[in-house]
């Protein structure tokens, strides 16, 4: 029982950064833009979030700064792809390389300096109760990530602005001819995706390992990209996908630490599982889809206003 609860808590923690990043990317892709730079924006958010939390001692400020850093880095992508219609794939890759360099450079002075984890804000009777902690024992970021999934669903399918955003992603030329600013909408979506990726990055030092580790996101940004495909661009399906990947990552952690029943396989194989599972999931999706696709029609295509 104790082990089950401990594993659930680890699983939810491991899923949270992927969920944040994927929720942001879903909005970006719904507007017709493919930003492959999630990993880079996450790293920017992670290092700034860490630095601000370390300096101020206030994780709330850290999260805010991480969101700002993610959004700021996404603007490099936005200017290049939306205003200068550069290749989105290449620009996203460049953003990832940039984030890796930026975070390594800025993180260097913080190596080996621990911060406090961003812990549950519920009263300790609830947050540390052996059973109830499965509900109350999480960092505020965990609840926030779940709320954001609902907020994004509500925004996309229940608001006028969400309708416009989806229209821009499905048919940019029609949206433009009705008089909506395609580029403007996409700038907004990319900024939101960047902010979410920034928070996703901050999750690593704030709720997973409370110290600065170079390249600490370990490809989770790319898994978030796969997750959006897995969810067929539907917000609530992100939850299922994120927790599935969280479960696999949890098994890896337990395999590395405890051994026990996990010993039968080498720890490197457990560490490979999230990546292999991502490939498997992508294969299953394309088998299921059989040609017809649920991706936004204008995904990845540059748009140039003619007049």
């Amino acid at each position, binding site marked *: 029982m104790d082990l089950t609860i401990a594993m659930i808590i680890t699983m939810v923690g491991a899923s949270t950064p992927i969920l944040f990043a994927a929720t942001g990317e879903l909005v970006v892709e719904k507007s017709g833009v493919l930003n*492959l730079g999630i990993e880079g924006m996450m790293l920017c958010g992670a290092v700034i979030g860490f630095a601000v939390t370390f300096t101020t001692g206030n994780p709330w400020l850290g999260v805010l700064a991480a969101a700002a850093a993610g959004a700021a880095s996404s603007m*490099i992508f936005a*200017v*290049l792809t939306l205003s*200068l*219609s*550069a*290749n989105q*794939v*290449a*620009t996203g*890759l*460049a*953003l990832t*390389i*940039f984030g*890796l*360099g*930026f975070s*390594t*450079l800025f993180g*260097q002075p913080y190596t080996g300096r621990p911060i406090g984890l961003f812990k549950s804000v519920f009263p300790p009777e609830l947050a540390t109760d052996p059973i109830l902690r499965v509900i109350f024992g999480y960092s505020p970021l965990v609840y926030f990530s779940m709320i954001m999934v609902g907020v994004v669903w509500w925004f996309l399918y229940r608001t006028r602005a969400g309708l416009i955003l989806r229209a821009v992603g499905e048919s940019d030329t029609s949206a*433009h*001819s009705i*008089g909506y*600013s*395609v*580029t*403007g909408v996409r700038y907004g979506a990319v900024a939101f995706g960047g902010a979410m990726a920034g928070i996703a990055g901050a999750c690593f030092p704030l709720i997973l390992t409370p110290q600065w580790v170079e390249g600490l996101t*370990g*490809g989770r940004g*790319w898994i978030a*990209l*796969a997750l959006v*495909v897995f969810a067929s661009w539907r917000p609530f399906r992100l939850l299922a996908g994120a927790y599935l990947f969280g479960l696999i990552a949890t098994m890896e952690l337990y395999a590395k630490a405890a051994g026990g029943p996990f010993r039968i396989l*080498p720890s*490197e*194989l457990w*560490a*490979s599982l999230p*990546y*292999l599972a*991502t*490939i498997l999931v*992508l*294969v299953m999706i*394309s*088998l299921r889809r059989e040609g017809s696709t649920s991706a936004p029609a204008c995904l990845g295509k540059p748009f*140039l*206003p003619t*007049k």
Partner: protein
Amino acid sequence: MALLLEKRPNPSRAMVYLTPVVAVVLTMVVGAVIFSFMGFNGIVAVNEIFFTPLLNPLKWQDLAVKSAPLIIIAVGLSIGYRANVWNIGAEGQYIVGGLSATAVALATADMTGWWILPLMGLAGMAGGMAWAFVPAILRVRLNVNEILTSLMLAYVAVELLNYLVFGPWKSPTSFGQPQTIAFSADQSLPYIIPGTIVQLGAPIALLVALIAWLLMSRSIFGFEVRTVGSAPQAARHAGFSTGRTILFALLIGGGLAGLAGMLEVAGPFGRMVPQFPTGYGFTAIIVAFLGRLHPIGIVFAGLVLAITFVGGEVAQTTIQLPNAAVGIFQAMMLFFLLAGDVLTRYRIRFTRTSSSAGGT
């Protein structure tokens, strides 16, 4: 808005050649400013990173060593990128190529003969191809996005490397160090210039670029690749097999990354170690773009990136500039290149802001 992009009927040739130069120059200027703000001497930093390796003849051999794997991998990637397939997992194919070559070296540990090194080369290429085959066949048969699958396999390759060097391949005489036994003379690349560290990798890189140039410009395959990439409709009408072209393009990319892995492990490394993944596979993406996806351009771009690596090491010792700064310079170069590319495809027109609806 006052700025309007107007599509050119044909990409501007002058801009194709000019943009990479402008991107490199802008990187130096902006880099100097940024690093000055960060408390370093920005001008000295740029000078050490970009000019010291060029002006100091002692550093030229380092340039040859560093640029060879970048050029080989980037040439392979560029063929795929021309066909609009985005293999970004060259790092994984490079690692598995190195591992396959190591497997041959370990199996021939007690043997001698001239045939061992070529066999290691073939094994390296086969390993890289095998690792690229997975994303290739999934893309061609099931239309699975090759960007994600190739990258995921890069992470798996790192784990495979760790498993082997920490486990079955660990040398019994390494005092617990995770590394294989050192390669013998017959398993190591010969030095081609006496008294330097330049091994066979450098001329092979030039040869690869030359062959790729001929392949892309003179062969039917090269034409198919370009057509599939730029006009998939036309390729279908012409009866080209899009699937086969994509498959071959990805396999060539994987094979060349694997070859680079073999040349590194049998060259500078001399044995397999956990530090083998050096990020060449990712940097080669920048090299491919900076070289305009053209084999000859890639040779020059490979040299430029090698200069930043060697210069980064110089700046690390002379002005304590952290090595990660090089990554930022490299990413900036790609940003400026992509931004400048807009000028090859579009003309920029300045117009008066109109009050009509729909303007952005």
